[in-house]
């Protein structure tokens, strides 16, 4: 199921401003890759170029190639709608559809993709909620609004919604930054389970989290405010945190970052 991602020479713009510059990297299937770096370094922007969400932002524009198992996401004839259906995303703040029930939230993507049979929907909804470690908490309130859950539960509901359509890749944009430590732990455990099925890319501000959940870590930095963000290095998480090859990475990780 899970696919590999090869990025080459990718730059992203907001109108005339270049937010990230000439980024290349490979992401292996069934791994967790963490993006770390200071605010404004473009890691979230880069993440959003991986499912063509960047161009949704007014003025957003992308140059370069993103290959998903050898197919270029930005190639001619590629439908961004299909890309987003193939590469799922979880956002910083939990965003279940406020007017939909728990069940409908999970089923939303399925209905879009033509799953109509009630029994099929039931099976997949349950499977996805189990997959997001949420089933036991919500199985008695499937018809209650999703916005009535706690923050951590809402975020897992969003994960369930994302994995319900069986994407190849799952992007997570600081999924725990709005959550308390216990909910964060639950999500981190979940990421460990999900990587057996999906290629996962996670942006995080929390370096311990990157160290805990990821197999590989990419460090992004920018030379000054107003300058484009760059990929400094990407390596096995263990190496990045013990013996990075670039001085800037070590400075950032050890907190000596100005």
């Amino acid at each position, binding site marked *: 199921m899970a696919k590999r991602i090869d990025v080459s020479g990718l730059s992203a713009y907001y109108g005339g401003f270049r937010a990230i510059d000439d980024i290349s990297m490979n992401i292996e299937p069934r791994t967790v890759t963490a993006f770390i770096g200071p605010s404004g370094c473009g890691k979230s922007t880069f993440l959003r170029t991986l*499912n063509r*969400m960047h161009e*949704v932002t*007014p003025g957003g524009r992308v140059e370069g190639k993103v290959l998903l198992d050898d197919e270029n996401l930005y190639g001619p004839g590629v439908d961004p*709608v*299909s*890309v*987003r*259906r*193939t590469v*799922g*995303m979880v*956002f910083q*703040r939990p*965003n*279940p*559809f*406020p*007017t*939909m029930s728990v069940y409908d939230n999970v089923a*939303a*993507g399925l209905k*879009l*993709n033509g799953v109509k049979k009630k029994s099929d929907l039931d099976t997949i909804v349950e499977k996805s909620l189990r997959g997001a470690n949420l089933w036991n908490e919500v199985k008695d309130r499937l018809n209650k609004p999703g*916005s009535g859950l706690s923050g951590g539960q809402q975020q897992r509901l*969003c994960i369930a*919604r*994302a994995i319900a*359509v069986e994407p190849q890749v799952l992007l997570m944009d600081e999924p725990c930054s709005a959550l308390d430590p216990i909910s964060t732990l639950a999500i981190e455990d979940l990421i460990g389970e999900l990587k057996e099925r999906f290629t996962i890319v996670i942006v995080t501000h929390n370096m311990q989290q990157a160290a805990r959940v990821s197999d590989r870590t990419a460090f992004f930095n920018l030379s000054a405010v107003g300058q484009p963000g760059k990929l400094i290095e990407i390596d096995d998480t263990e190496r990045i945190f013990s013996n990075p090859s670039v001085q800037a990475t070590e400075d950032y990780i050890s907190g000596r970052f100005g």
Partner: protein
Amino acid sequence: MAITTQNPTPPTAAKHAGANVTRPGDKIFSGLSRGSGILLLVVMASIAIFLTIRAINAISKDHGNFLTTFEWNANANPPVFGIAVLAYGTIVSSIIAMAIAVPIAVGIALFISHYAPRRLASPLSYIVDLLAAVPSIIYGLWGALFLVPHLTGLNMWLDEYLGWTVVFEKEDPQGAARSIFTVGILLAIMILPIITNVSREVFRQVPRMHEEAALALGATRWETIRMSVLPFARSGIISASMLGLGRALGETMAVATVLSAAPILSVHVLDPVGGTFSQNIVAKFGEANEFGRDALIASGLVLFVITLLVNGAARAIIAKRKEYSGANA
């Protein structure tokens, strides 16, 4: 008058210090502003009271049935008048206006908030703001001198092809289109800007993250709007429509210029007959004696109550929405 010390805004120690020393300036100023608020309530209450007193006087001497009589002969002796035709005309023309205006206004609002090129969006909403300010008499003048002659063709067409529905049957297909239907179209054009304005505001308030949630699931633009924008904005659209409805119900001059009134209650919306509350008031006012004026006030009271209910409902929906969106902020 006691000074209101439970003031909500500046929660500081200074307030408590000020509460102990009642300064004359504070007393006068708070009294004035409070008095203004009370005056507003008094005005509202006296509108209801005085209209009711006059209305009761009129209705008690009505020799027809106020609710079911068609004609309006309040000056006659004995006076015979009723609001049946007026209520019917007011409601039917408003329904036609709403049926045309609401979908189009929502379309325009979506166009401005989601479809138009960004550079166009803000000048467009500016133009809509300006159009909302065009005086109704000008809509009336345009409606009577431009729209009416241009609708003859449409009327003939409707009569020919949809005449079998009875509703669109027209006695004199060639006749001027001074009908309830034309009034409905004109009202629709008039309330478009206000419904568009409010809906656009609501669409703009839809949190970006809800739209991104839908997009990230692989929804097309339309599916995104259906999944996240419209459900979030539904109550806002309803209240916007009701504000528009309130306007359509009470519109006077635009109706008075366009409609060729006659005390006939007809299901044929294209026939130049019928009337509305406010149109009837303006039309009959000139010839009305003192009792005739009371009778017109009685019909105005009915209109007042109807618009109160419609607006009250719209406001209640907005208030509910505020709580709801606050909880999700």
